Every structure is written in structure tokens, then in C-alpha cells.
């Protein structure tokens, strides 16, 4: 569900479904909440039942899924692991976010052919499988010549979900899934952790259940996505949630209105989401005769080679000159990049380089290779060119000083280099993707306050090269974290399919050293791959 008044647009679990109708026993006490290390007796005294399980993963999205997938392949039985989650299946949040941001199942996501969360080997890649199964020479030719003579191959969202479903069945994912909301994780006196779960109403006789485990894995995803402050202010002050929407909330009504009534839309942002939203608007013009005019607001207009500090030719505070060896293509406002990081962060030079950097140096490289960007796709270029020629697509560069209602429309006062200009539109679609601070996530805040966790140079959770959450060790117990919350660590591309698998491999490796799972050497790996191919259990 989405609470329209909240600053977050990511669907959150309604806490009321996890609160009992009548006060029942087994709740957290003040004593527990104030104590960093819990004894078994303290938990028992609070009346909270304890479940023993060696490994729990919290989140239950794709991050949890690829981690348990690795461990299942490394020989861990389902009885040794639990996935604590409010989600019914791992791709639930991902599918919601892609669908509303205009990537329904038949469309292609922005992900590499060999990043398959359902297959730890990335072989056969999505592209190879698609090209061979449907014998599509165009796909195979694209794979051979990308990115030189063809756009990068990217898989269809629907195919990704179907394959995840197949793998979830194969590894008996449902046997490990425990529904509920994780409230806190605390270190256990004597080693390991207590993870406190609030099960759905009626699922448990007590309000909370404690999972006592040696290992905990955190994969809770984005701490939250926020609206730009001026947009949020407008929405609440004018009680208008229809004309100003975030790309990550359901906003199909906007497209329906646009097909019926010629209108003007302001699109804000210069990343992949803005590209997808523009594609939808332009597709609706082509296919359904919509007469939409698009005003595209860039904060930073990229007009040539660039890096994370901006255009090569502009003032670059803190950035110095661009380097010949570190320059990205760009134009018409956009910075072009195949995927959300330069490709080699997932295995090549940049991965190796960042792994050896600390503190400010690491933050600097993150900045240099960062910056909002989108892939260069020939179909989008064609549509935008047509829009510029026919006058229905225009760009404005600047920031919004003020927004106010003007009849049925919205008047934006945009501060540009040439002064303040009024832009009156019917709808605003926010594609800026402002991310919330990790401390806005209750579980993460508790770990920072009571669990020994700390922040990395970029402000997210500080994890080691093995994805161990630094400072949270408890006796022989280890806590790991992967995904968006760990951005800024020794490995950059964390919040991606392949990034989650890189993390899962490191976590598996560390757990193997600790004796929790078998080693996936060449023989085991090959045997397991054949099992994957045949669809038989690991």
C-alpha cells in the first residue's frame, strides 16, 4: 500500500496488519529495547517464543533470493535457512516498481544479458537463451556486436520473473519463507543474533517471534524513495495527488487523461526512469493519437562528453579536468551509459580498483563514475528527434523555485541561467528518484543505534569486502548486508541483479570458510549447473 501523505512512494507494509486486535503477550519490553546485547533469559522473560535456525535473511526480495540460491547450491538444506519477509515472492517489489515506471512484463529492463538472478553462472545468458530458443538471428547478432553496432541486449521483464519463479520452485524457496515484518535485530549474549519478527495477525499466538541464529543477512532494499520537497509541499498544501505524481507510484490515470484530452506534461529528471516515462508518452502519441506536449526539465543539461562531475566543458567544482581515460558520451541533456554503472564495476577494472580504495578516494571515484545517466537506445533517439522537429518535445534547464495552482493547471516558476521563467502544465511526473537516508528505515536505524553498524564514506551501511556489516560481529556470529543499503562500499554496483550476485558469492565464500556450507569448486559447480539446466533440486 502507499500512504499518499507520506514522503515515501515505495509501497510499505501497512503496520496495522501486523498489530494484534487485542493486546497479547510476547511483546518487546523497554528493557529489551534499551539493551544492546540480549540474553536468552531476557527474551524468554518477555514471553517471546524463540525459534532456532542457523541462517536468516531479512527482506525476501531479490537480494535474499540470490543469497539463499547460492547457499542452496552450496549444499545448505532448506531446514537451515529462513527468509523473513512481508513479500509473497521475491520479485514482488521489483515487479511493482518496474510496472509503474513503465516497464510492464513485455518490455525490456535495463540489465545485462548475463545478469541472471535465477542462475548463479550467468550462462546461458538471457540473450543467448532467447536467441536460441526462438531462433532469433537478430538477437544473436546483437549480442555479438553490442555495444558497437547494436544497443546492449536487455531482457524482457516478464522473462526475468518467469525464470525467477522456476528457480524459486527448484530450490524450494517457499519452504524457507516466513511471512512477517522484522522489527529489530539485536546481538545475543554468547554469540549470534536475535531477529524479532512480527507475524501477520493470527499467524502466531504471540505478538512477536524471535529467531535465534548464528548468521543474519540483511537485504531490505531501498530505505525509501522520496518526492522532491517542492512537489511534496504542493501535493499536501493543495491536496492534489492526481496532477503531480512520482514515476514510482501508480499513475496510469495520467496516461488515460492524456489520450482523451490534449495536455502538457512536465517530466523532471534525466535518468532511466525519465527515459521510460518519455517513451510511454511518445508511444501513446504514436499508437493512440495522444496530443501530449512534453516539457522536459533537466537540472543538469549534458551536452557532450562528461563524467559524474558534469560536462567536460563546464565549471567542475571538485572535479578538475575530465580524463581521456574516464569520459562518458552524452548529448541533448542526457549522459549515456549502458547500465547504471560503467560495466566493469561488475567484474573488471573498476571493481578491482574500488576494492582497494578507502575513504575519500573511494568516495571520489564513486562521484566520478556516477551521475544520472540513461542508455542510448536508437528507438528513443528517433522519437525524441521527431518530437523536437514537430515542436511537441522541448527542454528546460534549471530548478523549480515555486509551484502554484493556476486554474486546473500548475504554474512552475523555473529558475534557469537566463532568469526565472513560468512553465504552465497539466501534469508533473517526477522521475528524479531521490533516495531516503538509511536511518529512515526503522530496522537499519536500530542497527546504527544499538547493533554496532556504522556508515561508509557515502553514508550507507559500512560493509567489508565479504559484505559483513562492519562492527556487528557477535561471538562466532556474523551479520551480512547486500543491496542498495550498502552503496559506497568496496564494491560499487550493489543495487543491481549482478551486484546482488557478487555480494551473494562473497557471502557464500565467507560462510564456506566458517563451515556453514560446501565449497562450490569446479566439479560441484558443473554438476549443479546441469541440475539447474534439468530443473532438478540442487
Amino acid at each position, binding site marked *: 500500500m502507499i500512504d499518499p501523505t507520506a514522503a515515501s512512494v515505495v509501497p510499505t507494509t501497512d503496520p496495522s496488519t501486523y498489530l494484534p486486535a487485542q493486546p497479547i503477550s510476547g511483546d518487546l519490553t523497554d528493557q529489551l529495547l534499551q539493551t544492546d546485547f540480549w540474553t536468552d533469559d531476557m527474551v524468554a522473560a518477555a514471553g517471546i517464543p524463540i525459534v532456532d535456525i542457523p541462517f536468516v535473511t531479512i527482506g525476501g526480495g531479490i537480494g535474499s533470493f540470490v543469497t539463499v540460491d547460492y547457499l542452496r547450491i552450496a549444499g545448505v538444506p532448506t531446514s537451515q535457512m529462513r527468509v523473513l519477509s512481508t513479500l509473497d515472492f521475491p520479485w514482488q517489489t521489483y515487479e511493482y516498481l518496474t510496472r509503474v515506471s513503465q516497464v510492464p512484463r513485455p518490455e525490456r529492463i535495463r540489465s545485462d544479458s*548475463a545478469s541472471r538472478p535465477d542462475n*548463479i*553462472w*550467468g*550462462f*546461458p*545468458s538471457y540473450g*543467448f537463451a532467447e536467441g536460441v530458443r526462438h531462433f532469433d538471428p537478430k538477437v544473436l547478432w546483437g*549480442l*555479438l*556486436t*553490442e*555495444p*558497437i*553496432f547494436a544497443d546492449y541486449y536487455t531482457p524482457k521483464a516478464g522473462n526475468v520473473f518467469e525464470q525467477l519463479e522456476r528457480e524459486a520452485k527448484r530450490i524450494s524457496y517457499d519452504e524457507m519463507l516466513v511471512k512477517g515484518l522484522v522489527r529489530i535485530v539485536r546481538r545475543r549474549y554468547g554469540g549470534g543474533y536475535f531477529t524479532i519478527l512480527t507475524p501477520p495477525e493470527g499467524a502466531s499466538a504471540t505478538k512477536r517471534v524471535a529467531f535465534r541464529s548464528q548468521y543474519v543477512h540483511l537485504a531490505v532494499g531501498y530505505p525509501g524513495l522520496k518526492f522532491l520537497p517542492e512537489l511534496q509541499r504542493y501535493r499536501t498544501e493543495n491536496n492534489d495527488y492526481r496532477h503531480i505524481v512520482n514515476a514510482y507510484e501508480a499513475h496510469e490515470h495520467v496516461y488515460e487523461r492524456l489520450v482523451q484530452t490534449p495536455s502538457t506534461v512536465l517530466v523532471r529528471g534525466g535518468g532511466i526512469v525519465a527515459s521510460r516515462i518519455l517513451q510511454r508518452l511518445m508511444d501513446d502519441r504514436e499508437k493512440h493519437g495522444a496530443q501530449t506536449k512534453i516539457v522536459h526539465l533537466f537540472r543538469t543539461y549534458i551536452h557532450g562528453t562528461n563524467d559524474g562531475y558534469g560536462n567536460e566543458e563546464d565549471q567542475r567544482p571538485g572535479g578538475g579536468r575530465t580524463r*581521456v*581515460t*574516464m*569520459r*562518458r*558520451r552524452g548529448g541533448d541533456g542526457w549522459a549515456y*551509459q*549502458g547500465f547504471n554503472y*560503467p*560495466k*566493469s564495476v*561488475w*567484474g*573488471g*577494472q*573498476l*571493481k*578491482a580498483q574500488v576494492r582497494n580504495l578507502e575513504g575519500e578516494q573511494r568516495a571520489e571515484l564513486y562521484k566520478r563514475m556516477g551521475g544520472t545517466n540513461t542508455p542510448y537506445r536508437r528507438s528513443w533517439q528517433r522519437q525524441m528527434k521527431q518530437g523536437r522537429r514537430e515542436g511537441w518535445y522541448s527542454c528546460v534547464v534549471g530548478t523549480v523555485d515555486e509551484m502554484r495552482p493556476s486554474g486546473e493547471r500548475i504554474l512552475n516558476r523555473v529558475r534557469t541561467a537566463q532568469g526565472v521563467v513560468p512553465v504552465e502544465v497539466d501534469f508533473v511526473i517526477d522521475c528524479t528518484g531521490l533516495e531516503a537516508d538509511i536511518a529512515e528505515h526503522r530496522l537499519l536505524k536500530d542497527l546504527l543505534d544499538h547493533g554496532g553498524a556504522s556508515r561508509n564514506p557515502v553514508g550507507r551501511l559500512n560493509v567489508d569486502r565479504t559484505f559483513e556489516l562492519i562492527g556487528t560481529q557477535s561471538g562466532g556470529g556474523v551479520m551480512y548486508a547486500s543491496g542498495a543499503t550498502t552503496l559506497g562500499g568496496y564494491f560499487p554496483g550493489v543495487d543491481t541483479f549482478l551486484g546482488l550476485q*557478487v555480494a551473494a*558469492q562473497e557471502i557464500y565464500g565467507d560462510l564456506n570458510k566458517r563451515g556453514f556450507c560446501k565449497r*562450490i569448486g*569446479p*566439479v560441484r*559447480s*558443473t554438476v549443479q*549447473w546441469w541440475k539447474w539446466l534439468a530443473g532438478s533440486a540442487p
Partner: protein
Amino acid sequence: MLPTLNGRIQTRIFMLVVFGGVITLVLTPVLPGDPDYRTTYLILAAVLVLGVLWELVYHAIQQLRWEKDWPTLFGLVTALNEGALLWLLLDLELVPGIDYPYDGVPFWAFFIDFSVIWLVVWVWTNGPMRVPFIRWRFFGGRII
């Protein structure tokens, strides 16, 4: 591929020793012009030694790419420059250790052996290699 310099060199050596070694063993007796094992293995060794030098060049070219990747197609077309240089050296009888026949090393024997090895290595590098070695692709092509 997403190679580091170290990974490039390790992968090159691994692939040429394993696939180059086996393919040369099988192919030599049936190659046209009847070259002996000494000749074919010395040529394979020359591909390896020159290949390590070529990797330095490729690594330098890779620095000009923002993504720091090495596209699949590059792995295939580099057969042309490497093959041409090696044939030139063979034609000039500059590869040491070979007992050059009076009419030179048979071209088609070189061409077939070189092309088959290259194709097999290229295909293997772009997919199946990831099956036995799960760390290989995440560590820039390093094997150890």
C-alpha cells in the same frame, strides 16, 4: 568480457594451454602440409608469448572506453591482427626453434590450427567458462 590486465593474461595462458594444447594434439596429424608436433607446438607457444604482449596493447585500448569493458566482438576480430602478425613472422622465419621446410611453414596448416583454437577459446570465454569457475567473471578473468 570485463577483464583486468592480470585477468587477461591469466585467461590467455589458461585457454591456450588447455584448449590450444588439446586441439593442437588432435589436429596436427591431419593438418595439410604434414607439419610435425614440434612445429605446431612452437607456433602455439609463439601465439602465447606474442599474445601476452598483445594483451598489453588491448589493455591500453580498453582505457579509452568509459565502461572499461572488452566487447564480445573485439575478442573475435583480434584474431585478424594476431594471426596476421604471426604469419608474417613465420613467413620471415623469425619464430625461433622451428626447422623451417624449404618451402616454408604450410599456410593452411597454420590457418586451420590457429582459427579452430581461436574460435573454441572465444566461444568458451564468452559463456561456458563461467560454469566451472564461478569467481572468474567477477575477478576480471583471474583464475588464481
